[in-house]
């Protein structure tokens, strides 16, 4: 049984004539990691702010943990952690003091505060620099402190806005690992990002955002099937009669498309993992198989392909 953590119905936000979010319908279940993906200015941050009750919707309904953020903002904000993009701290205070302030604002009982602060600092690996001023922190340390800041209230839902932006690849990976650990604690996570490939790794489901609309939603393989046609891309290198091999591959059950990419390189798009069948077919057609590889679904491809289609279609 699953519980709905976030639900929006025809959520709309307008700034004057500009429609930032257009009739958004979103459902996120408990324990899910959902990626809200899209280019800058697509309306992601606006959506997140409405979920938190920091911005008032022009129309539509929002329910977060069963509560209305516009009417019950305190209950929502007590249960939801928000990690803004380009998070700011009070630079003249130490990491510990920054966290204590947030803990106090959350009304955490005074005697619990020191323990919780130590806990979250240890968790994000900042115990050594707990009493250094935040002014001296690097981008990566700030981001980890931001996570500590969110965790101190023990949230049921964490909303992160561009959490890996500005981090070098190694730090980004490290940060994503922390997010994966959170998932194991049954915390629901909503991540907004335009860095598709980084986020792809941690999200259960993603939604593609474009001009205030959610244009695609589902798991990465689902989206792959929808947009790229085949969900699986298999590359194989074989030598032998080219036409016969290609024909054999094209007639594979489940193959959507097969083509020769280079002299002895073939590409198959298929609905399922047909690697063993492909190998058998090549051998049967009298070819010699040298390499067989499956390409993981890539959000970048899906994304690029989708917007290519949109551009050529009537929508644009």
């Amino acid at each position, binding site marked *: 049984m699953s519980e709905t953590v976030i639900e929006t119905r025809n959520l709309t936000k307008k700034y004057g004539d500009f429609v930032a979010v257009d009739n958004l319908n979103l459902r996120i279940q408990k324990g899910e990691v959902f990626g809200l993906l899209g280019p800058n200015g697509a309306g992601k941050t606006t959506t997140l*702010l409405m979920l938190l009750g*920091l*911005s008032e919707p022009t129309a539509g*309904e929002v329910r977060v943990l069963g509560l209305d953020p516009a009417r019950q*903002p305190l209950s929502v904000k007590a249960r939801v952690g928000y990690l803004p993009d380009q998070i700011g*701290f009070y630079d003249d205070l130490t990491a510990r003091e920054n966290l204590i302030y*947030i803990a106090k604002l959350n009304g955490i009982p005074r005697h619990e505060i020191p323990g919780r602060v130590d806990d979250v600092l240890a968790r994000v690996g900042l115990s050594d620099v707990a009493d250094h001023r935040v002014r001296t922190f690097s981008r990566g340390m700030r981001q980890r402190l931001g996570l500590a800041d969110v965790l101190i209230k023990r949230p049921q839902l964490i909303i992160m806005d561009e959490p890996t932006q500005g981090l070098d690849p190694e730090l980004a990976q490290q940060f994503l690992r922390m997010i994966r650990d959170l998932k194991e604690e049954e915390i629901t996570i909503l991540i907004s990002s335009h860095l598709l490939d980084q986020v792809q790794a941690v999200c259960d489901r993603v939604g593609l955002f474009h001009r205030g609309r959610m244009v695609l939603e589902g798991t990465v393989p689902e989206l792959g099937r929808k947009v790229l046609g085949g969900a699986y891309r298999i590359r194989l290198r074989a030598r032998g009669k080219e036409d016969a091999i290609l024909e054999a591959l094209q007639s594979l059950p489940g193959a959507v498309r097969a083509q020769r990419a280079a002299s002895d390189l073939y590409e198959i798009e298929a609905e399922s993992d047909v690697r063993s069948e492909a190998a058998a077919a090549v051998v049967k057609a009298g070819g010699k198989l040298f390499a067989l590889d499956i390409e993981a679904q890539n959000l970048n491809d899906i994304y690029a392909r989708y917007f290519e289609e949109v551009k050529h279609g009537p929508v644009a």
Partner: protein
Amino acid sequence: MARLHERERTPREREGSPWTGLGAVLAKEMADHLTSARMFILEILIVLTAVGTVYAALQGIRSGGQTKFLFLRLFTTAREPLPAFIGFLGFLVPLIAIAMAFDAINDEFNRRTISRVLAQPIYRDALLMGKFLAGLFTLAVVFSAIWLLIFGLGILGLGVPPTGEETARALWFLLVTIFYGGIWMSLAMTYSIIFRSPATAALASIATWLFFTVFWDMVVGLVVRLFQPAQVFSLEQALQLAQLELNLARFSPNTLFAEATIILLRPSVRSLGIVLPIQLDRALLGSPLPLSQSLVLIWPHLTGLIAVTILLFVVGYVLFQRREIRA
């Protein structure tokens, strides 16, 4: 229909109290003020002023033959080349108040801490109110300390303890000073909500203050001349004009503060009539007023100072509530 039904299920008014988190904001902001370099400089400035003017005043009092209200004279006695302490306060108080508040809100936006703080279970009310009260309390702490310092110097220098009446009058004076600071603080805070850049907010605050300190008198003069008939025939007309000038001048918080402090610290000043404030120095006629009568005289000033503080705060409050958090 469905939507209407939905709305009915959830409570219409906001849940919880707007004061949630006020204590935390207040404590943090006061700690910031009291430890900041900015405040340190201002404190040194005001302590030096206090010690300097009071020392000069002590010498003046010793050489003069007056025996009444010696402690109050510490605040009001000027001795060349130094003006009296209250003269200094007239511009030190706005300076300190503005310095504490001109970056109250826009700095949170610029540091990008605003979304993090407001994502906690508090209302915006708590943030704004906490910041304002922290400023006011800091002002109160600083001026109380100065006040005690002056009394201490007075006891040492004069060799007599202050009377009850003197102490009560000086306490009222302290209260007026704090609310005079409150006006400038809520003004600077409102500017810090309107202007994104702290420098602009600071300049706007200083400009407003300069306007009331330097230019308001000129403006009043001009306006009065507009109403002036070609020739003044009767005494009544002349009085009316003078009254108009005085009333217009009282739109400036500086005038209110100056009049209130004079009445409080110089019990022998018996009225705030048309003779004020230029001829006050020589107004030695009659015996001093009791404190209660002095208070009656400046009650409108006190309520005016407090009302303007609240009014400016409300303007800032409304603007801040409507502000989009998104930068």
